[in-house]
């Protein structure tokens, strides 16, 4: 999508995804984090993370693989998957991130209500973008925010995702700025 740059955020689609969705995610990343993006799939086969008993994919295992494979010029990687994700203690997750780390993942599976990644209606694009930014926020050390309109608010269901805004609250903006400043000076 965009050309390789020194400090970009890598969007890594898993499988075929709607170009509108990827463009929306890229645009919002630029707006919220101020970094340019590039799109390149660094992980296509997620079978290593499949739990046969649950018929779900272990997101933490995927994050470990993403972090290991991230290109040197990318500061963060966001994978967009289409399978149902879980962490062992929870029934499911919309996504997962390494807090203060490099990798995060979001899945369209529940947010797009089971549709294919190439068929994402506008309302669902908005949902997925919010959760993608939310997970990426974690990699910049942002935690869940008590303000229910903030994009870092933890959403218990899809309705909560629809309810929250696409913006960070004023506290999270400042904490993100602090973190980006820290990254740029370290």
């Amino acid at each position: 999508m965009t050309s390789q740059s020194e400090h970009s955020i890598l969007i890594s689609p898993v499988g075929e995804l709607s170009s509108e969705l990827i463009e929306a995610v890229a645009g919002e990343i630029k707006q919220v984090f101020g970094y340019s993006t590039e799109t390149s799939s660094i992980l296509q086969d997620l079978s290593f993370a499949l739990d046969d008993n649950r018929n779900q994919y272990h997101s933490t295992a995927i994050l470990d693989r993403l972090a290991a494979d991230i290109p040197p010029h990318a500061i963060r990687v966001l994978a967009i998957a289409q399978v149902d994700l879980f962490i062992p203690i929870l029934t499911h997750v919309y996504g997962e991130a390494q807090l203060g780390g490099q990798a995060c993942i979001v899945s369209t599976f529940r947010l797009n209500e089971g549709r294919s990644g190439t068929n994402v209606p506008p309302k669902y694009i908005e949902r997925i973008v919010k959760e993608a930014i939310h997970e990426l926020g974690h990699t910049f050390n942002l935690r869940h925010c008590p303000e229910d309109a903030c994009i870092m608010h933890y959403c218990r269901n899809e309705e909560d995702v629809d309810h929250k805004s696409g913006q960070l609250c004023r506290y999270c903006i400042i904490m993100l700025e602090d973190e980006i400043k820290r990254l740029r000076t370290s």
Partner: protein
Amino acid sequence: MSSTKILIVDDELILRESLAGWLLRDGHTVDTASSGEEALEKLKEARFDIMLVDIKMEGISGLDVLQHVKENDPDVAIVMITAYGSIPTAIEAMKNGAYDYMLKPFDPNELGVLIDKIIKHQDQEREMLFLREEHKERTRFESMIGQSKPMQEVFDLICDVAPMESTVLITGETGTGKGLAAKAIHTNSPRCNGPFVMVNCGAIPEHLMESELFGHQKGAFTDAKETKKGRLELAHDGTLFLDEVGEINMRMQIDLLRVLEDRVFYRVGGTQPIEVDFRVIAATNRNLEEAIKDGSFREDLFYRLNVISIKMPPLNKRKEDIPLLAEHFLHRFIQETNKDIDKIDREAMDELMLYDWPGNVRELENAIERAVVVAKERKILPEYLPIFCHEPLHAPRNNSLQEIEKAHIRLILTDNDWNIARCAKILDIDRSTLYSKIKRYNLQKN
């Protein structure tokens, strides 16, 4: 910044790690233990607000951990983690004091709701304790005393800075008189006819802080039955004294910085900007430079507060002031108690001079007060000074460990005017632990 401390006790590594990761992203402080034995070891060193405990573990079981915690720290909320087949045991655990139980794997919705519910419940408990303390709070201001060189330097600095408008940061150990210095600056400033409003940032529960500082509009939240002015508004035209400023959480630091920069704020739930004009004096016994390094204090707020700094010397660095201070306190307590006491015996004064006074002037003040109360002669003798007793807690040798702990906590609270943050620091436990112990031992201010 204070966050809820959660201990996960589960023998399955993958479950511990995934739950810990989720709770960390939710903003909590998390520790894990792989067995009941390890959990009990961790509990010796730290206190947790919530424990998530697997029922079935080899060795010490989840039920054993529950029993141990309920006997020693009943305010810890314990949620039992269970598999489908163990539900009857989980129900049994609830009869024995567990807060709730959850079936593995958890629905993320239910886990978040449960954690929020527990935190709210624990906050309410703390709020009640805080309100009780606040009601009984007695603030005593008096002239600062000291002829030593370090104190003369402090007096000179206070005289120099008082007429200015600059923000002052007062640092120093607990009990060194930071509050007195703040009051002295206010009294000698052009704002002396305005209010002197103190905010003890270490004593106000986190969820009350925003409303305390900024006030709220009627209906802003469930309990906001009336519009209330916050302390920033009350300090208008006067001085705002932020005591224990190092205890303010990160979000409130952001708000406070904005007010200090703009001098404008909004009440909680309010839409009308309120302009304020006050001078800020802040005090702390924390090393804020260290707090900046560990990420718990904002650097920009530090520089905003630390325009002029005053360091209060500890009492053991100005021992020549001890006789003067001791006589001053003696005189005051004789008047208060109407007791027939003339002086402090020379030997007792020698003891006062030899002691190291880790609690500083406040500890000296309390020692003299107690000596006056127990004195049976016309002079204060060494044996009236509790700090020099060889049985420091006056505890009979057959006292239980809990009785000794209760007596010691009461002593520290009394010596430090029930300043929770300060007492927690001296006792080397966190504030929530101290609150919990105060409640458990039913300790109350006299």
